């Protein structure tokens, strides 16, 4: 039951997100645009690149989608409204999202196209930058909740949301998440206009539709993770929990999508240097501070 609900709301969220993205990119709001685009993709002939690594070519988008769904599976939308409440949910989220990298490498390698491959390897480079910063803030969060289960992590924020409890971790996590979802300004992997869409360059038709959908799902999953870990999940006054979750997740996703409009693209090397020299030290400090606070003032 709850699985169905989650999946439906996921579809709705993905659609809403697509609308928001069109809005963020093209500037004008059209509620039906994505639907037409999707239909168009369905109808379009799906080309197969010359001498492509067929297996990877087909598997890439699917694996991407699967990884996104896996990540969504441990995000609680409301008490009891979660696909599976793993004891190691937070870790599982990382595990699932790690396969985004694999999927992109496959999808980039598969079609035997220069742009796509460059994009795939670039994403690997970018991964080196953000990987640590995804895990370490979550560590701090789990330290406060004294559990890796996402539900308990949300419950642990009843008194005070983590965004206030550990703002540093919040910032780091959001930046890393945007890197993971290769959202602008960290969208070098499929730098539109530079790599002709990067990984998506060689995909057409249904496969492209799947790829786009998967990306929406991943963005949603990351927004959900942000909400779960830092914005108190379903917690909130007056409205029912699921509404709070929906609002928060959509808001976070929208803000993630629209940041790129106001910032220039960041070079990988720079991102790497920043996240390793500054980010990781900050994350360590964050873990330390959280540990001290958790030991001294139990809230």
């Amino acid at each position, binding site marked *: 039951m709850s699985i169905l609900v989650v999946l439906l709301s996921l579809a709705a969220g993905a659609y809403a997100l697509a609308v928001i993205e069109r809005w963020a990119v093209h500037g004008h709001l059209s509620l039906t645009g994505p639907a037409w685009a999707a239909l168009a993709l369905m109808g379009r002939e799906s080309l197969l690149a010359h*001498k492509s*690594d067929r*297996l*990877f070519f087909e598997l890439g988008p699917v694996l991407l989608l699967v990884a996104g769904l896996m990540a969504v599976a441990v995000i609680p939308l409301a008490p009891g409204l979660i696909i599976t409440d*793993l*004891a*190691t949910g937070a*870790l*599982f989220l*990382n*595990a699932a999202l*790690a*396969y985004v*990298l*694999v999927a992109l*490498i*496959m999808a980039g*390698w598969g079609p035997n196209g220069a742009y796509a491959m460059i994009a795939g*390897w670039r994403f*690997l480079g970018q*991964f080196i930058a953000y*990987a640590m910063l995804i895990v370490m803030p979550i560590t701090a969060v789990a330290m406060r909740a004294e*559990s*890796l*289960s996402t539900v308990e992590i949300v419950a642990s924020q009843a008194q005070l949301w983590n965004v206030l409890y550990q703002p540093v971790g919040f910032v780091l996590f959001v930046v890393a998440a945007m890197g993971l979802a290769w959202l602008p300004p960290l969208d070098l992997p499929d730098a539109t206009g530079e790599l002709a869409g990067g990984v998506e360059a060689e995909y057409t038709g249904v496969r492209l539709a799947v790829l786009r959908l998967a990306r929406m799902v991943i963005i949603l999953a990351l927004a959900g993770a942000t909400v779960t870990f830092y914005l108190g999940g379903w917690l909130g006054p007056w409205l029912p929990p699921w509404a709070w979750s929906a609002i928060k997740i959509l808001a976070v996703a929208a803000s993630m999508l629209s940041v790129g409009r106001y910032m220039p693209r960041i070079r990988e090397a720079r991102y790497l240097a920043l996240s390793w020299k500054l980010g990781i030290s900050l994350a360590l400090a964050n873990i330390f501070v959280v540990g001290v606070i958790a030991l001294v003032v139990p809230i």
Partner: protein
Amino acid sequence: MTVQMIFLAFFGGAAVWFGVVVFRTHSMVRSALALLFSQTAIGAMFLVMQAEFLGVLQIMMMATEMSVMAIFMVMFMMDPGGMGKMDMTHQKRLSLWVGVIGLLAALLLVWLPDWGPVAQSVPGAHEQAADLGRELLGRSMLIFQSAGLTILTAMVAATMVAIVPNAEQRK
């Protein structure tokens, strides 16, 4: 013949099969990713064996490790998969013999002895994680710390080996 057994056998078979693929395929990326899937199947086996934390950890770590492996393969080998059937093995017969003999010996060692009573139930995932944490930061702290230190050392050493020596270091 429980469900667990079926799953265990399935994932185990997958792990072994992908392991074979690693050395059978000609495409570097494929062999790296085959290794990845083999490791992932192993992680799945952990999950079947109710070692949830370890399973998830394995799945997560291997994804990244093997991707790195893949890019290194492409960097160093330029993926001869495209260039057809080039042989990348040597002392094949010897290796085959050694591998087979090792395999058989190990199988013998696995099947011959009496493993004694088998535990039926394991602590729940929450307790497992908690126990593991206490173990790591309690009795086994020294080992744990030394492992961490080893990794740190390896990072530093690897960086030192890999970076290009600049002018005044070179002379």
